[in-house]
């Protein structure tokens, strides 16, 4: 039985806690959150206890094996280090940190303390993305020349509006389209050059939109689009190869739609689309990490991958700031 403590009961903490609660080989021993009401609510839902602070939880809990950090990005370093100090394995949400240096220091710290570190680049566990990579590797579409991705929706709302503080969250490029950077690196290897534009620094509040061009060492070109300027979340991907094309658009793949008939004239009914899977991607990711701990396996997402993803995002941000392409070493 793996005893897991989840820190943070926000959007991701909720997803993680619910996943652990459903795992047979995991005992969710507690949830830490500053916000008592939210913490208690989630603890009740997942049949565990709430703690007001990390220290309180570690003091009171008899046994903790794994600490799962679902805190705002700027707090990752502090809490991963605390966990490493306590000799616990760590699962941390992406992005690992705000800069390559910060990310590397976290990795080094965990290495020194001899604890395992896993970073939640969950796109690698989305079956549609996994399958696309498989098809590429199988040669189904030949050599990929141009890849295009989209990820976006509305500006995120969260505790303390921390996403709006770009120093802390890294904004759209570091927080959101890092998923696509990581996925593309997983499929196509390292990136050589990055050029990007976004609304950053152009005087617009609570809205962002970024268009990033990546040139891979393999020569492949990728166009990564991110948006906090659209209504409703969606993600898209297109891989165009010499022998074929793979396309995916989450807005079009809706195996199930439940619609409430409008009760009043003039009021639209609400459609709730779902794409049910026996195990959702977050569950699959966390299950894989637990398995890696249990059986001492190399994870699908390594710490190096997590650092590289931050590096690409940072290069894009640098390009946005300077207006120049950034070459990665």
């Amino acid at each position, binding site marked *: 039985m793996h005893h897991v403590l989840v820190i943070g009961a926000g959007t991701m903490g909720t997803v993680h806690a619910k996943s652990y609660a459903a795992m047979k080989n995991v005992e969710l021993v507690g949830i830490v959150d500053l916000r008592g009401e939210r913490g208690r609510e989630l603890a009740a839902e997942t049949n565990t206890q709430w703690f007001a602070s990390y220290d309180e939880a570690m003091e009171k809990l008899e046994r903790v094996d794994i600490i799962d950090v679902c805190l705002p990005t700027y707090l990752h370093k502090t809490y991963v280090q605390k966990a490493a100090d306590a000799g616990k394995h760590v699962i941390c949400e992406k992005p690992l940190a705000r800069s390559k240096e910060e990310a590397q220091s976290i990795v080094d710290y965990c290495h020194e303390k001899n604890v395992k570190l896993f970073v939640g680049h969950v796109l690698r566990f989305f079956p549609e993305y996994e399958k696309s990579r498989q098809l590429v590797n199988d040669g189904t579409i030949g050599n990929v020349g*141009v890849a295009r991705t989209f990820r976006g929706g509305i500006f995120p709302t969260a505790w303390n509006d921390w996403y709006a503080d770009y120093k802390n969250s890294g904004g759209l490029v570091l927080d959101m389209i890092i998923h696509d950077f990581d996925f593309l690196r997983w499929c196509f290897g390292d990136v050589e050059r990055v*050029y990007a*534009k976004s*609304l950053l620094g152009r005087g617009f509040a609570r809205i962002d*939109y970024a268009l990033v061009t990546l040139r891979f060492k393999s*020569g492949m070109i990728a166009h990564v689009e991110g948006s906090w300027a659209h209504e409703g979340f969606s993600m898209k991907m297109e891989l*165009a190869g010499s022998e*074929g094309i793979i396309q995916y658009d989450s807005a079009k793949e809706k195996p199930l739609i439940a619609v409430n008939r409008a009760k009043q004239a003039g009021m639209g009914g609400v459609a709730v689309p779902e794409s049910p899977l026996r195990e959702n991607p977050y569950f699959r990711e966390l299950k894989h990490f637990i398995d890696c701990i249990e059986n001492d396996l190399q994870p699908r997402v390594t710490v190096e991958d997590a650092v590289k993803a931050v590096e690409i995002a940072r290069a894009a941000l640098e390009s946005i700031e300077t*207006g120049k*392409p950034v070459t990665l070493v």
Partner: protein
Amino acid sequence: MKLGIISVAHMHAYSYANAIGKLAGVQLVGVADEDEARGKEAAEKWGVPFYHDYRELLAADVDAVIITSENAKHHEHTVAAAKAGKHILCEKPLATTLAAAQEMIEICREQGVILQTAFPVRFHPAVVRAKQLVEQGKVGRIMAIRGTNRGQNPGGWFVDPAKSGGGAVIDHTVHVVDLMRWFMGVEVREVYAEVDSKFSPTPIDDCGILTMEFENGVFATLDCSWSRNKTFPVWGDVTMEIIGTEGTISLDAFSQKLDVYSNDKGLKWVNWGDDMDSQLVSDFVASVREKKAPSVTGEDGMRAVEVALAAYQSAESKQPVVIR
């Protein structure tokens, strides 16, 4: 009004001829082509005289010409037509160098003939509507645009730089750049591009992502790749995602289609939208008739070419290229 066609090298010659056939009071009176086989075949199909030498066509009783020759010949054909006093509808890209484009524009001005660049997408009803929505302020102020104009590798002279001036970048940059300029009424200030040859057997640029910054501070990207393969359900696309302060517009010009599944061809999209080429031709004819300035000018054609050429330069230097 009597119209001639100079060269059927570009496949659009066929849809333009078709469009002429549908217009009242307009007559196609001849086809010139240095390639006798393809020229004669087209002339026979349309039941008009064939001229081996375009100068003979220009000497005939013709009011205006449509130039659908290989890109690198637009200049020669336009200059000759202008000097013969004929109005001109010239296929895009207007020219393969800026100097050539400039000269074409000047000569047409001097000779007092119309020079219109064939940008048919401006006549697509969804594009016209999108522009209207932008002008009505439906999305507020435009902040960014994401565009694509992808297609299949057309092969033939298109992949011979001496005739085409380049591959996908010059072929597929101009349409959507023209739309972006047209929607916003400003020019491109700076261009960055990643360009490569990834899909074709011939060594020609067949994929590219351009990033542009406009004079009004709007940034945009454009995918001009010939990345549609044989089995893709349609030859290509024209899309724009317009990000404004108050909302977004998604334009997918060729999405008025039927999904057709045939045993023979698999899935193909059959378009049922309005034909933009005939709109383009009838607009040109109207300008000639009413002796008014063309709705899409030679200058428009040149500005779009300018961006494509800057993209090549940027890809070469791996640095953004400042146009103005």
